[in-house]
């Protein structure tokens, strides 16, 4: 290696040779080191696109039936717009908050989501056999299990990020302060605490019963624990435990009848056309009949003709499949994939363990829920009551999704680099 002289080439104009480049405020904000650089604009744009797409699909899904019934065909559209706008605001507010401050609030957020779930158990309202909604005055309803996902991610991330980094010596301050660099590898005990904290949430959701949401919670918790960096053999132990649990459930008939039929009927949808296989088959037909380009928005006779159940909520993807075809359906999957990718990216560059775990938790939640929801409409996953993130109609779900994106943005924006 040679230690050469400084470049002899042209090193650019000397300072002051040209007048400084005039930049607009916006330009400065987006320039290197600018304020706006802290935001993940791709994530922002994709989120907005999904929200808009979801609103339009809800409209397309509900308009024909409402019109046929002689009701206001825009009933759902109006509410969907309201939820999307409110959700957007929630995302911005969350993104602007320092996630470390949110970390300090975690116990309260956790407690609040637990209380909501207890409330639903006490005063909840049954819809389609699941007691999952709390009625509010004005005809609104809250679905606490959606917020339980946030509660679980935050509590797990908090409990798993309490170990100081041992290599850097003793921390100089309490957890949550800059002097406490809490990014050490969590011990098994921390994972156990995280699981213990998640247990009541999971149990309460199971009581509703909301099998799909329960699976999301379990899967997300497991994912966060794995990503937190506990030893591989613990991970393998976890996998073994889950496998054992599944085996036990199957053997000891711990699943309720409806759960088992729903879980297994997707394997043989044609066997029981009038029964539980019906929904799955109808959804598959709706998606499959869309073709490459789809029938066009508002022109889906199958989803519009009430042949698919819960078409504006759990089965909204069938509307996309039938009316937008492969192009639209694949685009939605791709956009959701981008959201997950950006969340993982945020986790990778996160400043501390808590931020990393929150962002990856959101990523796991979204990818799992997307895979199950889309999968059940195309016959590769059992039918469970799960909404498609950002797309399905439902205020609570949209709010939870938007707050989650806000958290990811917050983790990114409050990196030391930008503050």
């Amino acid at each position, binding site marked *: 290696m040679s230690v050469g002289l400084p470049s002899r080439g042209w090193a650019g104009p000397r300072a002051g040779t040209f007048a400084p480049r005039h930049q607009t405020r916006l330009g400065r904000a987006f320039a290197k080191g600018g304020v706006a650089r802290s935001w993940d604009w791709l994530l922002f744009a994709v989120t907005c696109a999904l929200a808009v797409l979801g609103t339009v699909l809800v409209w397309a899904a509900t308009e024909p039936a409402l019109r046929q019934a002689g009701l206001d065909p825009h009933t759902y559209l109006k509410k969907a717009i309201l939820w999307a706008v409110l959700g957007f605001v929630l995302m911005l507010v969350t993104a602007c908050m320092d996630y470390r401050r949110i970390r300090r609030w975690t116990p309260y957020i956790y407690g609040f989501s637990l209380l909501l779930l207890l409330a639903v158990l006490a005063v909840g309202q049954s819809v389609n056999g699941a007691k999952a909604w709390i009625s509010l005055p004005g005809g609104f309803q809250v679905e606490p299990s959606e917020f339980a996902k946030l509660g679980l991610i935050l509590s797990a991330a908090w409990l798993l990020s309490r170990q100081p980094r041992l290599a850097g010596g003793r921390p100089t301050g309490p957890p949550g302060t800059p002097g406490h660099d809490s990014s050490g590898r969590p011990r098994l005990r921390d994972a156990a605490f995280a699981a213990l904290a998640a247990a009541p949430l999971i149990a309460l959701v199971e009581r509703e019963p909301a099998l799909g949401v329960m699976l999301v919670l379990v899967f997300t918790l497991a994912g966060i624990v794995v990503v937190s960096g506990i030893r591989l053999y613990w991970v393998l132990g976890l996998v073994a435990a889950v496998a054992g649990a599944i085996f036990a459930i199957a053997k000891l008939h711990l699943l309720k009848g409806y759960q088992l039929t729903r879980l297994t009927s997707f394997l043989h949808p044609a066997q029981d056309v009038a029964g539980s296989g019906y929904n799955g088959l109808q959804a598959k037909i709706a998606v*499959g009949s869309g073709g490459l380009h789809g029938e066009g928005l508002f022109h889906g006779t*199958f989803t519009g*003709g009430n042949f698919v159940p819960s078409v504006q909520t759990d089965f909204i993807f069938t509307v996309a499949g039938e009316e937008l075809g492969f192009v639209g359906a694949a685009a939605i*999957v791709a956009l959701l*994939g981008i959201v997950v990718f950006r969340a*993982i990216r945020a986790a990778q560059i996160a400043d501390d*363990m808590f931020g*990393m775990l929150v962002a*990856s938790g959101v990523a796991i939640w979204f990818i799992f829920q997307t895979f199950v929801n889309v999968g059940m409409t195309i016959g590769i996953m059992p039918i469970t009551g799960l909404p498609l993130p950002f797309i399905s109609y439902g205020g609570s779900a949209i709010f939870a999704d938007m707050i989650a994106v806000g958290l990811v943005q917050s983790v990114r924006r409050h990196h030391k680099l930008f503050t």
Partner: protein
Amino acid sequence: MIPRSRRRLFGLYALTLAAVVVLGGRLWYLQVLDTTQYKALAQVNQTRQIVVPAVRGGITDDTGTPFVRNETEMVVSVNMMDLSQQTTDNGAAVLAKLAPLLHLSDKTLAEKVRLCTKGVPQPCWTGSPYQPVPVAENVSDATALQIMEEPKVFIGVTASLQPVTDYPMPDGANPAQVLGYLQPITQSEMAADHIPETGFAGDDLVGQAGLEAQYNTELTGKPGNQIVSVNAAGDVLNTVGGTPAQTGDTLVTSINAKVQAIAQQALNTAISRSKASGNSVNQGAAVVESTSGRIVAMASYPNYNPSVWTNGISQSEFNYLFGTASGDPVMNWASQGQYAPGSTFKITSTAAAVANGFSLNGTYNCPASYSIGGQSFANDGEPSLGPISFRTALIQSCDTVYYEVAYQMWQTDDNKANFQLNPHAPIQKMQQAELDWGFGNYTGIDLPEESPGTIPTRQWLYNYYEDNAHKGQNWCKNGKANGSYVQQIEYDDCQSGYVWGPGQAVIAAIGQGYVTSTPLQLTNAYTALADGGKLYSPRIGEALVSASGKLVQEINPPVIRKVDASSQTLAYIRSALAGVVTQGTAAGAFGGFPLNQVCVAGKTGTAQVEGGKSTSVFASFAPCNNPQFVVIVMLPNSGYGASAAAPAVRAIWDGIYGLEGHKAALPGGKLPPVPGTGKATVKR
């Protein structure tokens, strides 16, 4: 961040990518490669479920010959509401096209669909104007198809499979009240019975009376369903699948059509003869029971044709069925009529006397009249017979012997209780014996309609007084000490209606006064007498047989109890009753009867009823020594038992055994084997 997390985050990337690729690949497969299949499925898929009603099971006689036959037939109906609303000529053109297709004249078809309103003569449609009018039954499939394929031509005309109920009346047997009838189910019945609504022709029919109601669950069967695919407009394209409807079980009854027809005929003849001799009789019943507790015939007068219930009943038919003037044909007087049994009741009085210490072989005085406390009770105008045995008392039907017996039993009974107004007073000895023989209580026969009869126990007397002294008949208000005869009785009843006095006790012993019995109860008591004291809960149903002819359930009459009488006593009474026919009160009625072929034993009854003609009763069993059947005829308002009821009973015996030039309905008195048990089958 620890390196391990970094690595695992890359793993997460990979997993996400894999998930997205899997979803995208599957979408490509579904939406691009396989889309034609799903496009076709989307067209066909749109399925609907149609309920297929079950055919109701029939009811047969003991040989398997149907009394009630249910079938589905292709029925063409015309909805006159649709027709008048959708055509300008009130459907004249449509009907003109329809008539030749159904092989009907224009006039007949017009008569079938016109509404029965004021001034419209029969035939006309008696049902609701909103109901489709059935104009042709048993239409061929080709005709039905032709109608269904041209809905634009045949506006308001439908061809569909509908249940049709048929009453073949084998040998003229028509036990209408026993069979009962079907009517559309009410909302409350549906809720109470958890019956699924099949939605057939808007209504489901359920049994509302008789055997149809009693065995409704078994007869109904199970509705099936049919899954059909429909296009977006809701038109049925083709059948996808479904489960067939399950036809209801057939109820085999122990009623023998031939015996039933004979009993009906005998009852009709007896009543018309009684009417001809100036009696105002308008109801009556004849019952034949085998000594194993099975009802072989049950005839109630007046009768009616049960097919009036199908396709809606008209107002005039309804008035007839439920009219008092017509004798309430809808009532089953055999199980619901409560009449004084008269002297036929003396068999229980004899048994009660013997059970309470009177000697079976003793002699009892039979004076022309018997007086208790200044009140005289006559022996029905008969002269004194002097000291006689129970046997002679039964043969000659001496009332005064039983007055004496009843008075003595009254005297030795709990006399303090007789004068108290007490709902919990003990039952008198004599009345206890009567209850024991099944009187005053439901027999538990498999019919929903049954009356309990009355036995004047002290408790019954208490309730009777409480119900009528100051309310109900209101004796204390209507009674007058020196008014008319009825008013005097009411005055007395107000004073002491609750008292079980010797007067009531003695006339109860000869089956009069407060005592009433249904023809069925009397039959059952005589069955107990004939069958060694076994009191059955009689059964009409014999077996339930599935549509494929397999025996589902055999129905056997349960024994309620053994009556409190020794076999010696029963044999004594039976032999005395044989004497009634040869030398006693029924000797005249059975004059010339071939008793050497079939020995008939019986007892006449002539119950005097206040303000009307006597109830004429004849209760009998045969053969005397080894009884197979019990035959009872009860005719209120008809005079003497020997003159009105006994000839009818004689005619029934003639028919059963084939005597005096009749053809035997049951040769040798042998009951046919139960259909469905392998020895015989149910006929269609």
